[in-house]
């Protein structure tokens, strides 16, 4: 791995304060509290349907239908708006990859819309086109996509399409990675690469919030179990129905 710019020279912090979310008649989660510092990862655990994806969408700001607040460095993410989004790299259920475009084109438009500003980053000029190309190549190489870089993604397998989406993490200068099931359809080699990237991101002081059923080896990953935050069915110690 080559040298990558530090995510942030300042300490970062993500707080989940008293989150409560209902879907229809059902309380999906309640009293979710957590505080995450830079260099820490948070793995959201829970049974299927326990609201893991919903929580990630709440953190990213895609879902606003909940009570409680989510704070980034002490300020509400809703108020921060674009300032918060400029720190956020989100990977959802759908990979966000255009089937008609090649991996390289997909990474290019993502870089232009969601990537860090081309002007300056950490005082270093990175708008240089040559350097941008170099970075793209490195992203594709990391996920073994070099020989497919000019093949439309429609002709790639599901796993390869996920790899195109994950290759964004190589380009990402964002402090916070929010990843919904990043290991889906990824083979063993890919898992190793991905876990190494997580480690490096955390070492740089970045932050990761993810859901996965894959056992993670990093010690910097904390776990938040949503099963413990489900509405209790009847009474204080009513058993959860599964």
């Amino acid at each position, binding site marked *: 791995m080559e040298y990558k710019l530090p995510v942030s020279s300042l300490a970062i912090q993500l707080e989940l304060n008293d989150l409560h979310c209902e879907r229809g008649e059902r309380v999906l989660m309640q009293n979710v509290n957590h505080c995450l510092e830079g260099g820490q990862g948070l793995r959201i655990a829970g049974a299927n349907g326990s609201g893991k994806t919903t929580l990630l969408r709440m953190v*990213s*700001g*895609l*879902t*606003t*239908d909940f009570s409680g607040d989510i704070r980034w460095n002490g300020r509400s993410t809703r108020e921060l708006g*674009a*300032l918060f*989004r*400029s720190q*956020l790299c*989100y990977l*959802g*259920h*759908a*990979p*966000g*990859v*255009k*089937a*008609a*475009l090649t991996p390289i*084109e997909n990474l*290019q*438009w*993502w870089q*232009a*819309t*969601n990537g860090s*500003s*081309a*002007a300056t980053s950490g005082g270093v000029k990175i708008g240089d086109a040559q350097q941008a190309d170099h970075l793209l190549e490195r992203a594709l190489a990391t996920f073994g996509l070099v020989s497919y870089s000019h093949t*439309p993604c429609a002709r790639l397998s599901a796993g390869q399409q996920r790899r195109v*989406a994950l290759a964004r993490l190589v380009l990402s200068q964002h402090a916070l990675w929010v990843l919904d099931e990043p290991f889906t359809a990824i083979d063993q080699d890919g898992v190793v690469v991905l876990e190494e990237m997580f480690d490096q991101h955390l070492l740089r002081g970045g932050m990761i919030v993810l859901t996965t059923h894959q056992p993670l080896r990093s010690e910097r990953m904390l776990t938040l179990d949503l099963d413990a935050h489900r509405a209790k069915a009847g009474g204080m110690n009513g058993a959860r129905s599964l």
Partner: protein
Amino acid sequence: MTHPAAMQADNESMFRILHAIFKRDLRVYFRTRGAWLNPLIFVLLVITLFTLGIGPDAKQLASNATAIIWVVALLGIMLSLDALFRSDYEDGTLEQLLLSPRPLYFAIMGKVAAHWLVTGLPMLLASPLFALMLGIPISIVPLLALGLFLGSGILSFVGAIGAAVTVSLQTGGLLIALIILPLYVPVIIFGAGLLQYALEGWSVAAPLMMLSGLLCAAVVLAPLAIGAGLKISMDS
């Protein structure tokens, strides 16, 4: 951010996202020809059906031509609008767009402008053919083309509001029609009026200016409504 350097960066990011999305969508359209070719074929087919239905009386055909052209163009664009945000919604690129730190307003403008280019421009180019089929004098074709181009722009921008609101619904197609057809009334009135005036030999300045004005208003205001609609669709 009121810092001058930040303002500069904001201006840059505005055009950066507009350009990126415009270019991306044009690429996608050229690789998936159905998106822009189908509305055009649809319009040609329906006009053919009209000519068959009305019969060989050229005079009767010409007197109905203005209404036929505009209603058919409107339907063609409306049909293509259903796909405007749907594929982005399904493949997850819409999420990425909404989570971009750069202004959504300009991303939407780029998206709709690309759509307008691939639906409006073919109609502009095919307008001599429409005119021939419906017995409209050739001298009026430039005006017809101009009117269709302006009108299709309004239809794209206004129709995209309906597409944005219905993108998360499984059966959005007909609902879009119900939502946006009433909004198309002014376009039909001034678009068909433009042709009518030209056929009668009157000055076309008034309908042309109305269409241009409506287009300006749609380009500036519709992205706000589209953005709000997309956020609501995503927030479920």
